[in-house]
Structure formats: C-alpha cells, structure tokens
C-alpha cells in the first residue's frame, strides 16, 4: 500500500530528487566514494592487516613481557593495560594478557582473553594461530578436551 503510493509520488518527485542527489543532500547509495563512512567500515579488514604497531604500544608491550618474565605479573598486567588503552584493537596485547592469565593458572580468563585476541586478529596471522592454540590449551586445562580437539582441527 505504502509502496504503491510511493511509486505514484516518485514520478512527480523524480526531478527534484535528481537535483537534490546532485547537491548531495540525500543519503548516498549506490557507488560509494572513499569518503563515505561505509567505506571505512568495509575496508577495515585489509587496513587491519596492514596496520603497524604504534611505538608507544610496542614499547609498553615489550615492557609488559619483560615484567612477566621477571615474575612481576601485577606490574606486567598494569603495563599491558596501559598499552591496551592506547591501542585497544591490537590483538597482540590481548594475547599477552591471555598468556599472563594462563601463567597465573586462571584458565577461564585466559580463554576469554585469547578469544578476544582471535576476534581482532587478521586471518592467517601468527597472532591468530597463537590465540587459537592458547584457547585450546585453556580449554584442555578446564577439562573441555573435546572442544579443544575440535578447535585444533578447525585451526581458526
């Protein structure tokens, strides 16, 4: 009903519509130009793959790892969370936090952090496969061997 009415009006309004579309007032559809937000949204997968870690993030991540190795897990966690607040989409930080939880024998948390790392990691990246391996290990530790096996077989 409404659609039919719209079709009727459409003829009358076609001219204005054309003019207005030219002025860019109407929401754009069809061929998207690089400036439109939708383009940002869609190209992110590739953008993500090409991203370079910020030196600040890289430095804090390294610092966090060193602290973990030095047996100072609390300090390591604080440092990694600083890194995370600077670059919350960096899967390596989430993975490192997962490692930290794993080292503290907190398997469910380790699993969750590793899952987050996996969700942010680009396909076929080493971070992703490391995350999957860690999820599987954490599942094993929780007595969920079946899920762990299945995950290792799928490998993603």
């Amino acid at each position, binding site marked *: 009903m409404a659609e039919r009415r719209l079709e009727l009006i459409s003829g009358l*309004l076609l001219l204005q519509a054309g003019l207005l579309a030219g002025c860019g007032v109407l929401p754009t559809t069809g061929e998207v130009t690089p400036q439109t937000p939708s383009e940002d949204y869609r190209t992110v997968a590739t953008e993500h793959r090409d991203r370079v870690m910020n030196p600040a993030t890289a430095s804090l991540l390294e610092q966090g790892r060193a602290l973990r190795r030095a047996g100072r897990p609390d300090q390591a966690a604080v440092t990694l969370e600083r890194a995370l607040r600077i670059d919350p989409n960096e899967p390596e930080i989430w993975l490192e936090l997962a490692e930290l939880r794993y080292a503290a024998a907190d398997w469910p948390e380790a699993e969750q952090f590793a899952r987050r790392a996996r969700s942010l990691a680009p396909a076929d990246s080493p971070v992703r496969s490391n995350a999957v391996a860690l999820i599987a290990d954490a599942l094993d530790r929780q007595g969920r061997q079946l899920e762990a096996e299945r995950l290792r077989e799928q490998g993603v």
Partner: protein
Amino acid sequence: MPSKRPRKRRPTRKRHAARKRRRGRKRGPARARRGGWLRRHPWWSLAAAGLVLFAAYLLFLNWQITSRFEGRRWDLPARVYSRPLELYAGLDLRPADLELELRRLGYRVVAGPPDRPGTYRRRGRVFELITREFRFWDERQPPVPVALSFGPGGIASLTVPPGRPPVVRLDPLLVGSIFPSHGEDRLVVAPAQVPSLLRDGLVVVEDRRFYEHAGVDPRSLARAAWTNLRAGEVAQGGSTLTQQLVKNYFLDNRRTLTRKLREALMAFILEWHYDKADILNAYVNEIYLGQDGQRAIHGFGLASQFHFSRPLAELELHELALLIALVRGPAWYDPLRHPERARARRDLVLTLMEEGGVINGAAAGSARRRDLDTWDRAAAGASYYPAYLALVRRELASQYRSQDLSREGLRIFTALDPLAQASAERRLAEGLDELDRRRDAAPLAGAVVVTAPRSGDVLALVGDRRAGYEGFNRALEARRPVGSLIKPVVYLAALESGRYTLASRIDDAPIRVPLPNGTVWEPGNFSEETSGQVTLLRALAESLNLATVRLGLDVGVGAVTELLARLGFDDTPEPLPSLLLGAVEMTPLTVARVYGTLANDGFRVPLKAVRSVVNAEGVPLTRFPIEISQAADPADVYQLNQGLVTAMQRGTGRSAELPFAVAGKTGTSDDFRDSWFAGFSGDRLAVVWIGHDDFSPTGLSGSSGALPIWSRIMRDTARQSFGPPRPARLVPQRVDYYSGAGVGRGCDSGVELALPAGAEPVRRGGCTGRAGIAERTLEWLNDVLN
C-alpha cells in the same frame, strides 16, 4: 538536701532510729555532717566545689582537645584522581586540549626552556615540558623532560631523554575526594611540603608572638580590646594561631565570652602538651579556607589545589600571600567573587611580611605587581564531579567501608577523562538549553555516559544539566523505558537463531497480539504507516515497530530477555510482548553496558570507574583489572552492527553526520516521555537520555532530542571509525536494501553486507532502485517539513 533538716544534738537513740527510718538514704548523715561544715564555711566550700568542678572541666577539655589533636589527627578523605594523560607520538589530540590539561594540572608557563617539574613552554605547535614526579600504582615516575610537536593528526613526534620509553604519563588530575558527611575536605601536607615562607608569613600576619606566648597572648588581646573599644565594634581579633586552631577544631563561630574562655583554656592545654612546630603544622592542615558547595575547604594543601590547581610546595610568594590573606575571611576575600578585595588584602599580607622581615622589599614589590593568578575553574569546566564520584563510591562500597574512604587518606585512580567529561557536560547543557528555547514547557532533564568500550573505562558521567550539581544522579539512578534502544537485542536474537540474516525479509504489517490478561495489544509504527515486506536491515535501520514485533514473537520474547541478560542487563524483566518495543526500564549506565557488548563484537567488558586504590603511603591495595567474557558470537554481532551503521547512514540516525563511521540507535518511549540515543565509534561509546523527572511527555523523539547532543559529544571525543575485522564465516555480498535480493553493482538501492557464507540471498524482488529513490525523497521531504 534532705527535706527535713536534721536537728543538732539529737539523742543518740533517736539518731539511730532516724538512720533506720532513712534506710536507702545512707548518705543522709554524711550530708548532714557536711551540711554542717558547709553552713560554717559557705565561701570556702563553694570555692572548693568550684575548684573541683573546674578541675573536672579542665580534664574534660584536656580529653577533648588531645583526643582531637592526637587520636583523630585528621580524617583524611580519599583523593580521587582522573586517568593520567598518556603522551606519545600518534596520539590524536589537539594542541588546545594538551594546553587545557596542563593548565588544569597547574603547570606553569615559562618563557625560557622549562627548568623544573610542573612547567611548560609552548611555541605554536611545539611544546616543551617537565612532568611532575608521581607515584602511580605500578611505578614512581620521576620528572621527565618532554618535547613534542603536533601535526595534523595529533602528536607527530615526542622526544624524551635516552633510555626512557617513548610514552610518558602526565600526573593525573585530582578530581575530587570522598569526604565525610560533615563536609570537611582536606589534603594533608607533611611539614616538609610546607614552604617556610608560608609558616613565617602566617606568624607575622596572624600571630607575631607565636613563638613566645603560651597559647594566649595577653598583649595582643589587650591591643585588640583597645582597638575594638575605640572603633566601637569588633575590628580586630587578638586570637593567637593556637586559639584559631582550637576554634577551627570545634567550628563554633559564636562570639560569646564563655566560648572565648573555653578557647583560651584549650589553647593553654594544647601548648602544654605539644611543641610549636606540631601546632603550626596542625594549623596549616586544619584551618578553614573556603567553601565549594557542600564541600568545606580545609588546610593550605587543599586550598592550594582549589585556588591554583597545583601543589603547595610549587606556589610562588604572591600565591602564598593570597592564601594567608584568606585566613581572615575565606568568603569575604574570595578571589573569584571579590578579586579587588582579595588583592588588597594580599598586598597587605605582603607588606606585613616585608615589615616582619620575612621577605625583602624587592620580593614584596614584585609579588605585589603580580595578578592573583588563581586558576579559572569556571573556564576549565567543573572542578568537582559529584556524578562520577557517586559511581566511584558505588564501586568501592563492596570492598571499603565508608569510614575507610573518608578517613584513611586512600588514593583512588579512576578512568575519568576530564576532556570527555567537559565535553559531555557542556554539550548536554547547551543541547538542553537549545531544546528548551524551542519548546514552551518545563525545563528538560538529561544524563550522559561516555565510555571506552574496549577497556570498559567509564570516561565521563553527567547526571544533571548543571555540572557539579550534587543531586539526583540520572546517569546512575533514573530507570526509564528504553523504547527502540531494545531493538538491536531483538535483531541479534533473530540472527543468533540461525533462521535469519540481515537480508532476510519480514512483514511490516499490522499485528494483533493477544495478551495473557485477555486484552489485545496492537502496536503501531512510529510513522503510522506500514511498509510491507522489508529486510531486517531496513527494519532495524528505520526502526520499524511492526516488523520488529513480528520478528521478536517469532524468535520468542524469552530468547530476547535471555540475550539481554547475557549482554549485561542485570534485571529480569517479564517476557511480555511489549518488551519487544522497549517497555523495559534501564538507567543510562545500564544502556552503556548493554551497548558496550555490541561495540565489543559480542564480548562483555564490565564498565569500571575505578582502576586501582593505593593507601596514603602509596602502597597498592586493590586493582580492578580489565575483565572480558564472550557473550555472543562475534559474527552475529558483526552482522547486527552493520544494521546499526546503516541506521546512522540512512536510517533514524542519519542526521548525526559524523566524519567517521559510527553505529547507533535512537530510542523513544511511549508518548515521547524519553528521548534516547546510544551508539559507538571504534573507540568511544556514548549514551544520552533526555526527559522529565515526572515522566511527562517531552514531545521529542530520540533523533530530535538526544541525537544532536550525542553527535556533538562523539565529534569531540571519538577519533576512530567503527570497523571491526570481518569474521571469517561472513562473506561480503551486495543485496538490495529493500528486497534483500542479491544485486549487481549497478543497482542504486544495493548495499554491501557481510552475510553468513552459506546463506544465499533470495533472487526474488531484485533491484528496487526507483522505489528507493522515491522513498528517500519522501523521507527527505519529511525531514525538511519537520
């Protein structure tokens, strides 16, 4: 006294009998004896009784004053800090924002290169600064000299001394304290942190003979009395610093003789027990120096933060002199309200300091030429955040008793972002003013929550349009119907069922829902029109009620409430069909929690204001780490979020017009009682609520009320486009927005959607390009006409 006075020389037997009669009044005869003595020496006995009473009184005073001085020392309110601003190359920050942060931290502008902590120099886009030393939860960061330059995208380069990591924390801003209900707030300073100029200045201005007298100074009392007698009024106080301290302890401003006497006695007692240095240090921390709403500013440590936003040890002579000037009348000499008066008094203090030999003439002269230099609290936004502090208190309530918070001097590190908070406060106030001007009704109320969804940090919280107002905190307390904000949950439940994709079709046609109570529920669309067969994408983007109800009933209201709980709603609403259109109440903070799970691709990250707590000595006590748990499949949430991005591009949120991709949803409750907007970019999430406290209609929809405010806050605070990586099991396809059919690149109404790999879009319907144009034109006309 006994009613019958015993007669003298009573026969022994009779006396014995009398004693018997007065059993139970054993002291009778003793009193009688003393009564005899009393009668013989009335004055002596009166004096003795007086002496005993006075001694008791002295003991009482002694107990009162020493327990106050010794036992309590001070209740140390917990100090609450904002997040530290992390400086690094690549940080998307405007030079003006850095400068604002530095000013709020009380960093001093210097002409040459910065030479000590807490100073900076700006030359256009280049900043040089030396950070203050600060003890964070994890480490003590020494003062670091930093040079940084801004480019178009924020900080382009950052130089630190070799060996330091390329990321430096500024000291966090002191944003409030949790003081006891009596309102006394203070920041206690150790004797080493008190500049000697302040000590000496106080002595020459307030109590020249401080080091000589024993608590009370008869000479200055006499002088004051003489001056007052000549002036015919109380023009001068002869109180010593010790007396002033006593007076402050008991906060009694009545000028009665007995109070004066009590004060003097207590001053004597204080001087008897403690040395001058202890008393002066107590004075520096105790004295009342101003009022900020319900908060009473006590001590020079807090007054320094309050008036200059910097530590006491960093104050210069003219600033110290102003604080000394305030002692005489914090309200009368308030530098913000009475700058001239304050300046005159400050200059007098400088003169007295010069005459007293504390400073030389040159120093006094140059200090007199300085402006008051008080920190402009008004220009920098509120200096005190009651709404945010309420959340801090709530979070700590499970681990700390309220007296621990108001007494133990804890330091609480929070996620509060003063820049985001300032934006949220200003945008809400301005937005509501604007809306009020257009409507002829009672003033609107509003609330804002801004978070960093990935870490769960609550960055800003506004519970009232008046910033700094300590009242009904709507962000935490106002439980309001959410209207269409619920719809994403309905659609996610549908996507989770596996029976729908975003390109699936559903009928947007009138629906009658029989309810258990025998009535029939007949919802309608917002536009009062129906659209027939529509895609889920369109139904969500354009917030079509009938399609949503049909979809929700198909997947089951129970599935929706179950999902709502997973996403972070902590209540269990009744699974009634009306819930599908948002007949469920949430606070703005709860909405932020639920939408946070959507922003995090299905991972639930608990929202937190407090990051860590250390004790008064800086020893770590508690840390509140980032937590995360998967609540929904990232692929389902990714699909859903495409709908919320589309809503911002062509649906109910399109008027936001932000330069980066965002996902969001409007919410309007029945009869326009609530106007909501909730949405997120890649790095920020904001929720805005507008309504009336008495639930009367506002006449505003989500997009006409809350959306413009939301959009301005996002423009101020968000930097990253929303764009999560596409989950592997979704494949990008081009489908028609209206029919959901697979279409080619030539189709005008086609949109690119990532859909589950196995789910082939239907062929039926094809490209509806023309109808699309007509409809969009109609929408546009609607926009213009409205």
